């Protein structure tokens, strides 16, 4: 029978049906980091349980690591405590820890793929909502909480309800200046920030088929911003070529065996979906968020909405967002002055993102009033960028070139907005206070748009900047 990838992966990993009707699902790869795990290990220890499959868990440090001075002990003693706890727990359980000294450290959703840990057909879990990123490889990947981290450590399983599957086909061709980030912001704007609750999103169509793995990761990453805990793309030649030769991918003959199995997990052409959505790529323009959730976005050449444009339900949301953002209904979003430019996060801090940002600033300089920083997604991304001289381009333009981590996406480390600063950000959430200042403001956009805004000192249409070259 024709089936979706989601159904196939779900079935291969099903252990049994639990008494309450949920499925006990085996988790093939468990990724952990310093923030959401210490309590899980404590709960495990308190009950005398052990880690059942330590080889199926891999740890790194990303959320709290400083990006300027990474020498130990960290200046922030709480951050130091968290790192020490992770080191202790990994050592005791025999879990591989890719720490700063390893050269392989980075944002968990960047290093999993780049090391070849993330593979098609797997179930993956991590105590982080952006675990959906790994779906780009045709894995079914869940963001989980700390009690569920405990469950996976103790049993390598989760108790879950199956999801429905919505196929989102992006047809046609993207226009110049329009990136994967714009595609996912478009999807979220159209389907809503909770439109995906209860669904896995399967991204398909010509545009997605042509995308690189980096681009697919950007799309899958923000599935959760659309309410979908899981997002994925069917594995294809692009996926397989990306994985070939990666450190933890199978090697030699095993790779060819793996390829056959990986391909067999793809959705069958005549699989049935619970819902289908079609999006015309040509209609998508460079997109910027203006509000306090990722669904509140505009094309860069549009004007801010009036509360009266919406029904009674939407009106208060628009009013609240405009008030918090200090923006005025009816004004163009383009020309909004920024204070900070941030290129980073699990959404957009891979090598290709850094290249696109660098293209925008080569030979230019960040506006005098703007503080700009680039935080590569991993130590490997940073090293590769340096081999290409991207660091030189960024620093010459006035960007700070930092160490790898989550940084100002959620500001658990010293990288934060101050006061009411406005940040043009390549990250994933524009929630109130998200970037570390309770009154700080975030405009989400593609890395190229962030770079262009850094130079202009205000939100600009990346297509205008490109045309001027």
């Amino acid at each position, binding site marked *: 029978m024709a089936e979706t990838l989601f159904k196939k992966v779900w079935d291969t*990993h099903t*252990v*049994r049906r*639990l*008494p*309450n*009707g949920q499925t*006990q699902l*085996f988790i*093939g790869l468990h990724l952990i980091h310093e*923030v*959401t795990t210490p*309590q899980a290990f*404590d709960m495990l220890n308190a009950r005398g*349980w052990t880690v*059942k*499959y330590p080889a*199926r868990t891999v740890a790194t440090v990303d959320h709290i690591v400083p990006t300027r001075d990474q020498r130990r002990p960290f200046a*922030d003693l*709480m951050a130091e405590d*968290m790192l020490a706890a992770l080191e202790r727990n990994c050592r005791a359980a025999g879990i591989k820890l890719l720490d700063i000294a390893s050269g392989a450290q980075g944002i968990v959703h960047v290093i999993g793929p780049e090391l070849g840990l993330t593979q098609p*057909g797997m179930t993956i879990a991590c*105590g*982080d*909502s952006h*675990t959906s990123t790994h779906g780009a490889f045709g894995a079914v990947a869940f*963001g*989980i*909480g700390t*009690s*569920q981290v405990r*469950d996976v450590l*103790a*049993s*390598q399983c989760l*108790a879950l*309800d199956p999801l429905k599957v919505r196929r989102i086909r992006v047809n046609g061709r993207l226009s110049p200046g329009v990136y994967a980030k714009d595609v996912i912001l478009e999807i979220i704007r159209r389907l809503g*920030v*909770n439109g995906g*609750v*209860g669904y896995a999103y399967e991204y398909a169509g010509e545009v997605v088929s042509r995308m690189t793995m980096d681009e697919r990761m950007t799309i899958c990453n923000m599935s*959760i911003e659309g*309410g979908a805990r899981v997002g994925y793309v069917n594995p294809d030649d692009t996926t397989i070529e990306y994985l070939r030769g990666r450190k933890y991918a*199978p090697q030699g003959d*095993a790779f060819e065996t*793996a390829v056959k*199995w990986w391909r067999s997990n793809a959705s069958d052409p005549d699989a049935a979906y619970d819902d289908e959505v079609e999006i015309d790529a040509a209609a998508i323009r460079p997109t910027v968020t203006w509000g306090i*959730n990722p669904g509140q976005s505009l094309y860069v050449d549009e004007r801010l909405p009036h509360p009266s444009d919406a029904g009674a339900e939407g009106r208060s*949301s628009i009013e*609240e967002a405009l008030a918090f953002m200090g923006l005025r209904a009816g004004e163009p979003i383009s020309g909004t002055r920024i204070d900070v430019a941030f290129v980073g996060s699990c959404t957009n801090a891979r090598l290709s993102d850094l290249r696109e940002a660098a293209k925008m600033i080569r030979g230019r300089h960040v506006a005098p009033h703007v503080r700009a920083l680039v935080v590569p997604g991993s130590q490997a991304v940073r090293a590769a960028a340096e081999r290409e001289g991207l660091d030189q381009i960024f620093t010459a333009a006035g960007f700070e070139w930092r160490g790898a981590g989550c940084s100002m996406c*959620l*500001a*658990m480390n010293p990288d934060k907005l101050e006061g009411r600063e406005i940040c043009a950000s390549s990250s994933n*959430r524009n*929630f*109130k*206070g*998200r970037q*570390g200042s*309770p009154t700080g403001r975030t405009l989400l956009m593609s890395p190229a748009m962030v770079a262009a805004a850094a130079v202009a000192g205000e939100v600009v249409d990346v297509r205008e900047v490109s045309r001027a070259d």
Partner: protein
Amino acid sequence: MPIERITTIEGTALPLRGDNIDTDRIIPARFLRAISFQGLQEHLFEDDIAQDRNHPAASAVYRNASLMFVEANFGCGSSREHAPQAIRRRGIRAVIGVSFSEIFFGNSVALGMPCVSVTNDDARRLIELAERNPDTAFVLDLSKMRVSGAGVDVPVTLPSAARESFSEGTWDATGLLLDRFDQVERVAARLPYLHWA
């Protein structure tokens, strides 16, 4: 297993207006810099409270609330269990709203804190009741699937698996997941990628 059947929750309610209240607002990320969940309740909604002196979570009249009324897509965003932990540690034992993010919902189940759904109109009515008279006593009855108080009595919904977990006291899943470990090992044995190494 810590078995506690959860069927009825009674008490006053903390009303919280607004859709899409994300977990960064429930507990800002800077308070996640710790290796335990202790004391998180001190920082519940801290940044929202700082910007709104009338925030209900800061009001003494709701200090002893054991229910919380919210609107749509509550708990969206980050998967941080610190959010439901902070709510639970403040004394809230169930959340009643239009809808919840999936991860927040699951995290709350794991803590034994039901998140039940009501219609838009009913959520609004409940919020207004708790705003008008903070002393109103409400009862959430999971066996009847109703919430009532001050003459209002409306239906609530909860997915059947969660409902059974609460009624049977099996909401802490780990024990169940370890029950038939032979079956787990059988799945591990048949998954090809566990054996490519």
